């Protein structure tokens, strides 16, 4: 399909690099979003007991 397999490999590597960056950023934001949601639901009841 491609003339040179070196070119094909580099094309693939750089596309993978794009998805590594995009994917890891999206995954990190999503993970943080889930974690923040869980924590804020746990706060209310026992916070005043420290005093």
């Amino acid at each position, binding site marked *: *399909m491609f003339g040179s397999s070196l070119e*094909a490999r580099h094309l693939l590597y750089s596309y993978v690099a*794009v998805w590594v*960056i995009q994917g890891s950023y*999206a995954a990190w*934001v999503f993970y943080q979003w889930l974690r*923040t949601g869980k924590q804020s639901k746990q706060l209310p009841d026992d916070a005043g007991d420290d*005093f």
Partner: protein
Amino acid sequence: MQRSRIFGPIGVIWFAVSLAVIVYATRLGLLLAPTEATMGNMARILYYHVPHSMLALVFPYVNFGASLCYLYWRKRDPLKALTADAVAISSAEVSVVYGSICLITGMLWGRVAWGIWWTWDARLTSMLLLWLLYVSYLMLRKLSSTGQTHTLAAVLSVFAAVDVPIVFMSIRWWRTQHPAPVFGGGPDSGLDPSMKPAFGWNVLAWALWGIFLLALRYALERRRQEREQEAALEAIEASLEMAQ
């Protein structure tokens, strides 16, 4: 909490649509579009390198607009100001992501096509400086003390926005006065009409994805803001209890 009920399904649909368009556009660009005459198959990298570069120049404007809104609403309507701030940090992070991809794919392409990782030509240098500006914005966000972060970051964003045109102009003059090798092609070197559809689809695809990322990061920032407000309320209530 009602907001997430509306955003939830729209978010999922948008995510699915952008992924679908990306797959379609990638297939168009990498497999189906005609091979470029001079640069061969490696030039297909342009199908995702250039859209990322174009979008990396758009998101900073979103950041600037949001920062201006923040500074305007800061004293007048604090709740709106918080949403503006959430948009500001989201667009800054997405700018850095797209800028990083532009730089990295550019370097990989240069390495394969011309044997050099980098050259200080006008476009690359300007993109690097833009990237540096927004990374410094993110550093300020991280290192400044709470309460001040939003205002300081908004001010820095204004500085960055004033600086961007000066950067582009000065680097271009520099390269006109001291010419240096240029990493070829790009949108202004005349795209062959047969490649335009594939290119257009790719720009659309990555734009949709960028908007999705912006919205996701915005949702995260809003959640964090809500948590801070809840924590502040806790502290106030606890201190009131103590006073009794």
